[in-house]
């Protein structure tokens, strides 16, 4: 059964990837890329990687297609063929591919429990994390404590991308007249408005659940941040951008993005203040397990704040571009 599922998912992935490469309709390519994300999320699920599946579904089938569609709306969906580069590309890809295939020949068999990867570092996480950190989701333990510094880096990457997008596009939309800010809203669609309004509160509630339940089940700051942002994005799709900006303006979102990183960084410094190493939460409370627990909750909060803020920032900036494009079209 597992084998059939595995083979089905892999062949679907392959068909999707080849079709994306082949089609010249960018709209189809973006939608299929979303499907590719969803398929790989399913694959991760079947591999037992629930946290990764959750994240990939949110990113690969959610945020990423959303941003690409906004870009397409401005740049157009037609793509030109470039036959002259195909042969060069085919040759280099074949060389790299053959190198990779030959590398796989001496790899440990797929799923084998005796593979070196399962024998050296990972066993400690499975056997000792309950005693050392005290939470059942091992992925959260590793992500937020054993390898917390990688996760700090991850938050900084998101922050950097947000700032990069802001520096590229952010300072153009502000010169627009206020009244043309919301052509995205479709006031006539009553069904959309009602459904949108009904959906937003449960989405926010779910985000909070994912944020604080990440230690016991799949989820955590990143996923929660994305879901939280999606709540606002949905609202702005239905009611217009300025309806959202009345609640959260751009400079507030920008400040929150920086704040999340600062929260994470400061929790790390508290480790030094408590006489231990950077990002060591053991000294934050009386006993080390409670300290770990507290530290993880605090840094996950930092992750959630930055991720939600950056996602909203990026979406606002991209939609402002869309508005700007339409204004320019009207003018000409």
């Amino acid at each position: 059964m597992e084998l059939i599922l595995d083979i089905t998912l892999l062949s679907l992935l392959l068909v999707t990837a080849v079709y994306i490469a082949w089609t010249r309709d960018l709209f189809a390519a973006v939608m299929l890329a979303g499907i590719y994300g969803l398929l790989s999320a399913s694959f991760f699920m079947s591999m037992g990687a629930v946290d990764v599946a959750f994240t990939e579904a949110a990113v690969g089938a959610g945020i990423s297609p959303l941003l690409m569609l906004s870009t397409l709306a401005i740049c157009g969906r037609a793509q030109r063929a470039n036959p002259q580069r195909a042969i060069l590309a085919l040759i280099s890809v074949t060389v790299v591919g053959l190198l990779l295939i030959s590398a796989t020949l001496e790899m440990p068999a797929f799923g084998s429990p005796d593979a070196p990867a399962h024998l050296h570092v990972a066993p400690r996480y499975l056997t000792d994390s309950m005693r050392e950190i005290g939470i059942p989701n091992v992925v959260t333990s590793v992500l937020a404590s054993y390898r917390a510094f990688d996760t700090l880096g991850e938050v900084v990457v998101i922050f950097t991308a947000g700032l990069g997008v802001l520096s590229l596009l952010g300072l153009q939309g502000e010169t627009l007249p206020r009244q043309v800010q919301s052509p995205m809203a479709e006031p006539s669609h009553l069904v959309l408005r009602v459904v949108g309004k009904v959906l937003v509160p449960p989405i926010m509630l779910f985000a909070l659940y994912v944020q604080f339940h990440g230690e016991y089940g799949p989820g955590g700051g990143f996923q929660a941040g994305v879901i939280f942002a999606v709540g606002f994005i949905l609202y702005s799709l239905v009611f217009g951008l300025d309806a959202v900006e009345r609640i959260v303006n751009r400079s507030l979102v920008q400040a929150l993005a920086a704040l999340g990183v600062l929260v994470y960084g400061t929790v790390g410094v508290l480790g030094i203040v408590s006489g231990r190493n950077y990002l060591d939460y053991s000294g934050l409370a009386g006993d080390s397990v409670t300290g770990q627990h507290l530290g993880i909750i605090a840094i996950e909060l930092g992750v959630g704040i930055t991720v939600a803020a950056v996602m909203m920032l990026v979406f606002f900036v991209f939609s402002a571009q869309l508005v700007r494009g339409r204004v320019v079209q009207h003018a000409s």
Partner: protein
Amino acid sequence: MLLSALYNYWVVVLLMMTGLYMVIAQGNLIKKIIGLNVFQTSVFIFYISVGKVTGGSAPILSQLATVYSNPLPHVLILTAIVVGIATTALALALVLRIRQSYGSVEEQDILTRDSQC
């Protein structure tokens, strides 16, 4: 034996190469970014396959399971997914600006317009 042990990795290699092919061969910048996405996602699939243990359940400790899949590749890929979307967002923002200042998102047009002036 070899086939059943390694077919997974071979498919992943094919996926990676499809993505990489798009990045190199396509002149449309958005298509390049989609290719980059497919390439990266395929590397994620490789990592997660490495973490698979036959019969293992998701690495959330409980009384019901004794064998778990390896949590470390999961953690690494969570980070890598986030890096991937960050890169995509920045790349798309660049594409929008390129479209504004060159009037096109096709590599050919951009190169000719740059050589004209």
